[in-house]
């Protein structure tokens, strides 16, 4: 139980990543795969933030010059997550535009039927 309460954020982040990998492996509709990519990105971002957490910490902003620097969370993972969120938005935008274009060609989004490029 102590293990669970200490590591709950890691378990949550990894749960999301594993669910997303399961979706990507077993579902055939392109939109479902794109949703899987989005959940994967969310899980990874949550993992990075959870690694940077410090107990009893607040946001690293000195809005009042008397704030104690010991009580602030690590600022580097927050900067990494800013970049990672923007990257995942860019990939999702590309994926959705490809899905629109693919539907206009094939009239279906089932990846098992879109297999013209075989050997």
């Amino acid at each position, binding site marked *: 139980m102590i293990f669970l309460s200490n590591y709950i954020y890691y378990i949550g982040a990894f749960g999301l990543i594993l669910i997303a990998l399961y979706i990507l492996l077993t579902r055939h509709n392109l939109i479902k795969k794109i949703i899987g*990519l989005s959940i994967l990105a969310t899980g990874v971002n949550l993992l990075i933030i959870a690694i940077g957490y410090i107990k009893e910490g607040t946001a690293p902003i000195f809005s009042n010059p008397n704030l104690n620097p010991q009580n602030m969370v690590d600022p580097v993972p927050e900067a990494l997550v800013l970049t990672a969120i923007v990257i995942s938005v860019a990939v999702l935008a590309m*994926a959705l535009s490809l899905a629109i274009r693919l539907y206009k060609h094939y009239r279906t989004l089932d990846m098992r039927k879109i297999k013209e490029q075989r050997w």
Partner: protein
Amino acid sequence: MVNPILLIAVPLGLAFSIPLFGFVSKKIVKLIPIVGMLFNLIASLILIPKVLNKPIIVKLGGFPPPFCINLFVGPVGILFSCLIALIGLLVSIYAIRYIGAQGKQSNVGQEERYHMLYLLLLAGATGVVLTGDIFNLFVFYEILCISSYALVAYLGDKPGVESASKYLIQGSIGSSFILISIAFLYGQFGTLNMADIAQNINSLTSVQVFFPLILLVTGFGIEATIFPLNAWLPDAHSSAPSTISAILSGIAIEIGIYAIARVVFTLFGAQDFFLFLLMLGLLTLLLGELSAFSQNNIKRMLAYSSAGQMGLILFALGVGTTEGIAGGLFQLITHVLSKALLFLATGFMIYRTGSMEITSLQGIGRKMPLSSLAFTIGAFSLIGLPPFIGFPSKLMIVFSVLLKQNVLYTVFIVIVLIGTVIEGAYFFKVIQALYFKELPTQESSDAQIQEAPLAALIPMVILMALIISIGVYPKIMTGILNSAASEFLDRVAYIKLVLK
């Protein structure tokens, strides 16, 4: 002395300003990638003597290294940067006539977008090889990957969009693995600087150091087309426009191999891992060459051949000695020059005949003599025949394995030679079709099959000249190749240079 940051800032700046140039005149948009890559090539060549003396460390932002991002310009970085600039320049000269000819410009600004994406892909590739920080490597690697997704789907036709969507899904899974691994590395070592992490990794036995290594090799291996992860390769390379196929086969997958090498050699220093890499490379080589043998579509055949060559390069890097790594890098240079030449030669052949099947290219040798000669020279140098660059590079790899004096490795060399024989078989099939078979009798299309335009011939001639001159006199490359190999093997010197 040129500041190496300009190697990345100038192409980015030119790419950002292409829409502004587009408002002035539509014609100069085609020339901007040429200007950018010419600057990169000249700057890289100027920097070579200084870098061979002592690697340059550029601190971005002015703070000392673990607290800032630093660029590490060593022999490996400057070699890759020269290659990227050279191929980028030649393919952009080819694209002056090729992209306009593709037609279907139903949207204004479509050609502008091609040139911006092209320049950004090359800037991203240069950023990957020159950086010294692992999260920065991830960001520029993403620039490379996302531009290649967009460029594969550029024509908007059925095979292009389908291949791009499959490539995108597989590439994004790889990128997420890399990000998870970066999170683990930051959590354990508290820093993102490659030299700082390398200082703290002592052994590979604990699982929390081994697991990020596996994730990183898997993630980068999707782009580097290693065996189980290259399902996207034949579709993407064959449905892209020919200039983009040349860039993908010539630059993008080599950047994947560079990233794996940087992580395994410099970051982790994993000596016990080399045998695994070697066997993986051998497996990729065999499967790639065997799959290429049974293809009838020429671009799919060339794509599988790229996978096989990446297996050979990974095999050479896995040998782990200075001669082995130098041989692997030399084979990489051979592959870049030859595969770009092959894709450029077949570009206009396919456009003139309208089909990608090998049977419809029969007899073109008479109508398009220079393109067929270019294809033949590219094929011979990839197989490894004497006066071309493939011969000294393959010889270097074979010698490095024989120097190990181990029976197991000798068996490996026999397998590599079998791969070379299979390669020779399928390339000879195509060359025989080009020169020794008759044209399929279609009177109406006879009049259209003529030689490629001048702007397309110049890059092919330059590549042929380079292949023959380095093949005849390989000593000019051995100096920089040996320095590059010792940069990869000498972790302690790397750490000391960055963190003094």
